[in-house]
């Protein structure tokens, strides 16, 4: 059934038991902390992503928001995959996720790179939902840039 490609167990798990949810202060007083608030104007979904970085390591990603299962699960996966990693690794994962979501279901996801993010392959077949999946990733990109961690270049065509 088509719907099961969209609502994979992994996505529903992240939605029902989100990882790293809730905005947090940085443990390290020297960390560079910045956040970004993104809104999907068509549906009103919102997410705030806060990044704490030490040099080029993102030591923590915390987030809060209101949205559908896809956007909320996506934030949870983002936290899972990107926390504690350096700018270069983050850029690769970020680019891989954006490529997967922009691929209209034609991109074979790299499980080693994306981890649970591969579960979103089915979402790419639903153009109306691609923005949901990307909402936290775009907010993260802005927050990371403000915290001094560049994630570019990534272009979104969805």
């Amino acid at each position, binding site marked *: *059934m*088509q*719907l099961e490609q*969209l*609502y994979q167990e992994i996505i*529903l798990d992240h939605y029902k038991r989100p990882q790293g949810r809730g905005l947090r202060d940085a443990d390290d007083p020297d960390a560079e902390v910045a956040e970004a608030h993104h809104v999907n104007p*068509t*549906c*009103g*979904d*919102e997410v705030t992503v806060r990044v704490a970085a030490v040099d080029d390591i993102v030591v923590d990603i915390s987030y809060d928001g*209101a*949205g*559908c*299962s*896809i956007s*909320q699960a996506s934030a949870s996966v983002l936290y899972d995959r990107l926390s504690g990693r350096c700018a270069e690794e983050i850029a690769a994962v970020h680019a891989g996720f954006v490529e997967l979501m922009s691929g209209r279901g034609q991109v074979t996801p790299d499980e080693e790179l994306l981890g649970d993010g591969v579960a979103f392959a089915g979402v790419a077949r*639903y153009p109306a*939902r691609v923005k*949901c999946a990307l909402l936290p990733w775009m907010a993260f990109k802005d927050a990371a840039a403000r915290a001094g961690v560049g994630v570019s270049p990534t272009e979104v065509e969805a």
Partner: protein
Amino acid sequence: MTTIAIPDGMPQYDDVPRFDVAAVRADFPILDREVNGHRLVYLDSANTSHKPRQVLDVLAGHYAMHNANVSRSVHTLGTEATEAYEGARAKIAAFVNAPSVDEVVFTKNSTEAINIVAYAFSNASLRADADERFRLGPGDEIVISEMEHHSNIVPWQLLAERTGATLRWFPVTDSGRLDESGLADLVTERTKIVALVHTSNILGTVNATARITERVRQVGALLLLDCSQSVPHQPIDVVDLDADFIVFTGHKMCGPTGIGVLWGRGELLAAMPPVMGGGSMIETVSMARSTFAAPPARFEAGTPPIAEAVALGAAVDYLTGVGMRAIQWHEKELTAYALDALATVPGLRIFGPTVPVGRGGTISFALGDVHPHDVGQVLDSLGVQVRVGHHCAKPVCTRFGVPAMTRASFYLYTTTEEIDALVSGLEQVRRIFD
């Protein structure tokens, strides 16, 4: 179900105007199609309605046989096109009981119609010789409500910014009705215009306007009613409504997109300065200045959506043929059925009136804490088309403390079987997300 005999001499069940829904459905080609392997269940008519073959034929037939520009050609095709376009205007005037055909201004949609009025205020406010009723400045007030569509909020916010006037609004009660308790304080001698939705596109509430109209008259303000969601669904009589302007859009009433209507009292339209300048709206033009045509031409600059207007005329014929009273009654029965059926779904919360009185066939709801996007996606996989999101009425979502709602809306072709499909689809949603 118990059968109750209605005593002789009382109105009988069959006295209610009715029509054959199956026969109506056969007029709409799209209702035969499948979606995701299921029969289409279209519950999004408040967003846009479907179009019967009778309208599609007129739309195509106009381009095929009568295509020409209007109001400027002496040739036969031009005359035919002009007659068809002006004929459509006459049909629409009759449909809403406008005292004069010249009170019907064709626009692109309701949004454009509201903007024409707002910009007429704006333009009048720049000219000392303009009609006082349209002149706005600091100290003057514009009154709207919390249940407006964005199209009846943003133009007034922008107008207030341009003129220094103040924007105020009626609140909404917990049960989704307009809160008129502050009417006397809200609508005062400072009020220049009250712009109010007739039927809410999100709560389904049909606003009773009599008290507000009375107050508007007392203080000498103007009243605009956004009838986008009422003209398609119930008989509307502008004389009876006693408004100064009403706006509505063709695509929600079996007509094509790209055509809408501003109806205004003839005397008021005549007092309004032009908004868009261009061809067709002038009386005479010299290099230094121009004078302007009388309404409705004054507000129809440029080549209008001719075929769309003609097809809207066909839509009005179609709706009149079925009967607006009968359509209204059909939707009332559907709404009562749907409110009962939705009440059986565990965890479902309806936003807006939960009784089929003073409301139309548009029902917004939440299913537990499942996000409307997810509700809509699962329903779509079953062929059930509902709208999810803020429905261009974000202040209503804020009022009820949710980022989004799921909305089912009905029309003359909707059946109780389709409401059953919605309810069983919602069970499927609960199975996935519970």
